[in-house]
């Protein structure tokens, strides 16, 4: 019997894989950011993986996840853990001692293999103290603009990116607008009044 993709990765990278789950044929692996390049290279080059297509790369801000509007946190109040990190009775070692403020952001990769016709979702939770991550531009060229977009809108740095500049917003724009603590009413027009 062939193993699921998640099981193969779990067995091979038990140190770096934090969590795996699958539902309705969608397979997800949550990994530690230190193992990103290692696992990405494996996903691209292993004959059973052959993920030749990085379909999507985006990020999620969990700042207000699971909160009602009235209890929406500020930066100082702790944010809840993402759904897959809710502490269980038998918490994994990496979950213990994790304060709620950590792992506010999460970078999500979607891979597709045109050879095996299978897909994989890779998630990398990021500690707010250090929002940086290895760049995948050396492995998939499509990561270039995706990572620029994530940096532009979320402010997550990708180490090793050849040209990490804003791609959607203008260069005089201040802040990262898709962060949940970016003021909803804030406008930064280049010309014209603050409408």
């Amino acid at each position, binding site marked *: 019997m062939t193993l699921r993709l998640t099981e193969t990765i779990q067995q091979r990278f038990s140190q770096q894989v934090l969590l795996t789950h699958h539902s309705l044929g969608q397979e997800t692996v949550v990994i530690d950011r230190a193992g990103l390049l290692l696992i990405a290279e494996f996903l691209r080059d292993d004959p059973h993986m052959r993920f030749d297509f990085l379909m999507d790369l985006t990020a999620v801000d969990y700042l207000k996840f699971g909160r009602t509007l009235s209890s929406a946190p500020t930066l100082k109040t702790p944010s809840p853990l993402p759904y897959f990190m809710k502490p269980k009775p038998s918490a994994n070692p990496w979950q213990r001692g994790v304060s709620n403020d950590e792992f506010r952001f999460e970078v999500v990769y979607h891979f597709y293999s045109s050879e095996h016709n299978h897909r994989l979702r890779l998630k990398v939770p990021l500690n707010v103290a250090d929002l940086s991550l290895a760049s995948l531009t050396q492995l998939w060229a499509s990561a*270039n603009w995706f990572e620029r977009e994530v940096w532009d809108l979320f402010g997550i740095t990708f180490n090793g990116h*050849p*040209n990490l*500049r804003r791609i*959607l*917003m*203008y*260069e*005089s724009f201040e802040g990262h*607008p898709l962060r949940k603590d*970016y003021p*909803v009413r*804030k*406008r*930064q*027009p*280049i*010309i*014209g*009044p603050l*409408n």
Partner: protein
Amino acid sequence: MADSPDVAKLNWMTTRIDAALGWARKFSIFQYPFVTACCGMEYMATATSHYDMDRFGAGFPRFSPRQADVLFVVGTISHKLAPVLKRVYDQMTEPKWVVAFGVCTCTGGFYDNYATVMGIDTIIPVDVYIPGCPPRPENVLDGLMKLQEKIAQGEKAPAAVLFSARPQEVGLPHRPEAHL
């Protein structure tokens, strides 16, 4: 009155120069379609043969602002694009008119966020607003006819440029490799 000629028998007529100019201008609209979004499809539907904008003398869009006299702003304008729109408007020669096509250009439409200009009249003066998301072709033609009336009467939106300063060049360095 016996000395005066019988006007009805003469082969000429009198008019005012501005009325004649207005009449001529309203049937020779050279529009510049500044198309940025989905409203562009509706603009094309109106311009082509089924609704036939050419009936109103506006059948020949010019894609250089220097050759155009009506600026059709069709689609959402973002803050990043606003200096471009302002520059295109500045490049048009007088007399010139501006049509805001669709709610995004009129008011920002359903966009109310960090990226979108809430109505192009915060940047340039607008003569005719055509609301709709997108506007029906009949709606567009109605707006076009209202613009024709305005042109014929020699009216214009307040020509005073809202912002006397030229659009800042935003301090953007020239980077030919910027897309890489």
